[in-house]
């Protein structure tokens, strides 16, 4: 089944229309986010369909998709926990948060996704919240001044279906939901943690 059909095709067209005529290639990144919001990661089908929409080769889309950290080519958990370990966060315990995240989610160091598909943990570079270090993001929503204990709490919450309120802004239900927002679209009405 095609990713970009029906309403999503309309959305894709609307995204492409944000850019000047003949410059629809600029829509690659939001289209990749949109595909990611549907499939949970950037799949081969997504690359092909986007290439067709824009009128370029699949390789040209894959070249862009593989350049960026937030476009994830491999299966990603429902919830993405991103932990900053760059300098300011590391100075205040960021590495401990990373360890706690791995432990709490059951993902071994070097692994990418928990066995039940619920979580992914990613070590991040500076997330731009240094004054409130150490920080993590849950589905790209900020949690500031986090402790290892808090990490375990958050993971526990997520396991029981509760997305904790972030430090600023509304909770983001899932990595897919985050991707949809990043595509510049309003969250879907029935947004939940379902695939």
């Amino acid at each position, binding site marked *: 089944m095609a990713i970009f059909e029906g309403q999503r095709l309309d959305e894709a067209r609307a995204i492409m229309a944000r850019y000047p005529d003949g410059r629809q290639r600029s829509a690659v990144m939001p289209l990749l986010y949109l595909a990611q919001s549907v499939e949970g990661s950037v799949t081969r089908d997504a690359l092909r369909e986007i290439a067709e929409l824009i009128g370029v080769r699949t390789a040209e889309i894959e*070249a862009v998709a*593989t350049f960026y950290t937030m476009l994830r080519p491999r299966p990603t958990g429902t919830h993405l926990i991103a932990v900053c370990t760059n300098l300011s966060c590391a100075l205040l315990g960021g590495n401990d948060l990373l360890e706690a995240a791995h432990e709490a989610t059951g993902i071994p160091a070097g692994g990418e996704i928990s066995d039940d598909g619920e979580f992914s943990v990613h070590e991040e570079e500076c997330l731009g919240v240094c004054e409130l270090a150490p920080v993590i993001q849950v589905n790209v929503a900020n949690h500031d001044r986090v402790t290892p204990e808090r990490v375990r709490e958050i993971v526990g919450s997520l396991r029981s279906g509760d997305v904790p309120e972030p430090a600023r802004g509304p909770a983001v239900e899932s990595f897919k939901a985050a991707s949809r927002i990043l595509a510049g679209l309003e969250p879907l009405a029935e947004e939940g943690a379902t695939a």
Partner: protein
Amino acid sequence: MNLTIDGKQVAVPAGTLLIRAAEQVGVEIPRFCDHPFLEPVGACRQCYVEIEGQRKLFTSCTTTATEGMVVKTQNTSDVAHEAQVANLEFLLLNHPLDCPICDRGGECPLQDQALAFGPGESRYREAKRVYPKPITLSPLVNLDRERCVLCARCTRFCDEISGDRFIEMFARGAAQQVRISAGEDFRSPFSGNTVQICPVGALTSTPYRFVARPFDLSTVDTVCPHCSAGCNMKLDMRAGEVVRQLARDNYDVNDAWLCDKGRSAFRFPDAPDRIATPLIRERGLEPASFGEVLTRVAEWTDGARVAILTGGRLMDEDYYALSKLARTVFRTNDLDHRRAGDTGAAAAERHAAAKPMSLTYDDVETAAAIVVVGLDAEQEVPILHLRLRKAARRGARIWVLHPRRTRLHDVATHVLCAPGDEARLLAGGANDTLDEALAAVREAGAGAVVLAGERPGAADAAKRAADATGARFQYVTRRANDRGALLAGVHPSLLPGGRELDDVDDVEAAWGPLMNREPGRDTMGILRACADREVDVVFLIGVDPLRDVPDAGLVRRALDNVPVKIVQSLELGSLEPFADAFLPASAFLEKDGHVSTWEGRGQRLRAIRGRDGISLADWEIFASMALACGGDLGFETLDQLHDEMGRLMAAREDGRSEPGAGTFPAEVEPGDALALFTYPLLVDEGRLSEGADELKAALGQEPFVELHPSDAAAAGIVDGGRATVRTDAGAADLPARVTEHIAAGAAFVPFNQPGLAANTLFSGRMVTRARITPAESDAAPEGAEAVGAATGGGA
């Protein structure tokens, strides 16, 4: 700009890069990512130079010369030298010690630089980056990622030059690597160029992998025998066997490029069925001597009605000798080199024959407005396609009038027209886009170019449009030396130099009196005459009409009925049941002489090895044949022939402009049949591609029939389904491709793919009427979609 490099003064045009300027004073600055035909990127950082007055070093590949600049290269600047050494250290950090098994060893810029000034020992104690290797980008190209220095020459070539963006850089940082998208192989007819320009052994050619070391090779400069582009090549041989063909730089012809067919299809001269000795049927096709065979030929042709068919493979000198032989010894004008004889291109032919070099590659590149009519350059003359893309990059506006979309579609505006409709559209007032094109052409005057190809009806219509707008024109045909044949008058109504049959003065001065001034029969006429027993002896020289002529049925009848068939070629092939005598010709590898590009540019062919067996160059056979028949062509050496030729074939005024005698319907008649047209794709079952297995694996296609959605819908045919194509001549069951990139009312089958010799569907022209219906069993065949869409109607 006047500047100083390493103390030497040099003057260069404004805009010249320092790296080029340095070359002019004999200084080669080391580089990887720089290439004269690619836009500078400044990625490898190897080419550092010091510029007086500047604090930082500059990359000479991205810096243009300015007046009074004082530049110091690695030869006179310690800082620049040390920067280059440091950069080399960085490049070698992760480079594997693959030299012993790497094809590039011995001709590798990285190796050369490391040897010249690189660190002798590595200071790197960490683990190197390793990747699984090699990965197959296509049946022709392999990639060893560890060797890659990420100069991006390959991806830039595919982006800037060929436009086939199959390979790209994926990931970033130290993980960056050249890749294809899984399932979308590197199906470009130009992929081999990336192997040639790769400065290390990351990209290697499958047919050449592990085959030879450069110091084992002897190299000869020659010209590619495959199409009229006339690409200059270097042939590498080891122990008498051709192991590799590379592009040779010629900025006037092929820049630095060669298509994959030119690179890989070199095994045909050594095909197992090559025959290097004369044969005679009466002795059961046993070897005979030239003397014996030519004596029989003389007997057969004495007072007989003789006709001559040839193709596009011979040299200029061969054709000249043949033209003279036909007229002075056999007294016939029944000779033709054209696949389908007259195709309504009389005015175009006369122009081409009379005006060689009136339009060159350079003219195409620098034109402001270009109209391409009836030509699929990427498939038929690939390097011309690249030159058209180059023109587009320089800002030329390009329009293509063709029954199906070509791979210029991203840089040119296409008007799809049914075959035969060109004249009506080019006359003006029938199509807004074309009118716009014609207006642009008119405005550009001599800066406008019209190129016409072999689609029936296209060439003369294009010539008329060119004449009406003042644009420069040339007729482009596909085969390697069609132009040489035309220039030499291997044509029923033309003498050498495009002279009409009654324009004999110069010719008779060289040849003696010409007895026969009646226009002869063209290819189709010859074949019909053979079938009707109105010809006694037919010569088939470097041609296989059973494969090449668009009327297989007629050719069979012709061969069945004509009493004597004399074949002169490298092999008998499908003519084996028919030949009464065989004369062994030498292959292009074994010949000295010239071939002419579509421009009419004669280029030197050089023998790389001795003649196979007792084969001879075609012109030599003709000369001996003349003597055996009681005549004399009057030359014994190539130089003598060449002198005589040169006098007769210098450029002259255009010939007549009215269309010639060929019958050709101006329009496709309405009705529920489609106009089925054909032409050979680049990679097909042609004789010259014999043995090029990797090429066919990479770029070959199954046969198919291509039609427009409106016609498909009317007939009930689905994309990926199968269709039955029925014409007056025959029928075929083929996979169907439905695409909007073909003119409505038209349908296309490729001429010669494995499994379909399309000439069984046609009746003497490269276009016919066809009824196309869904096949009996309409299940979509497996793999119908998987066939690479690298050409024409695809992406």
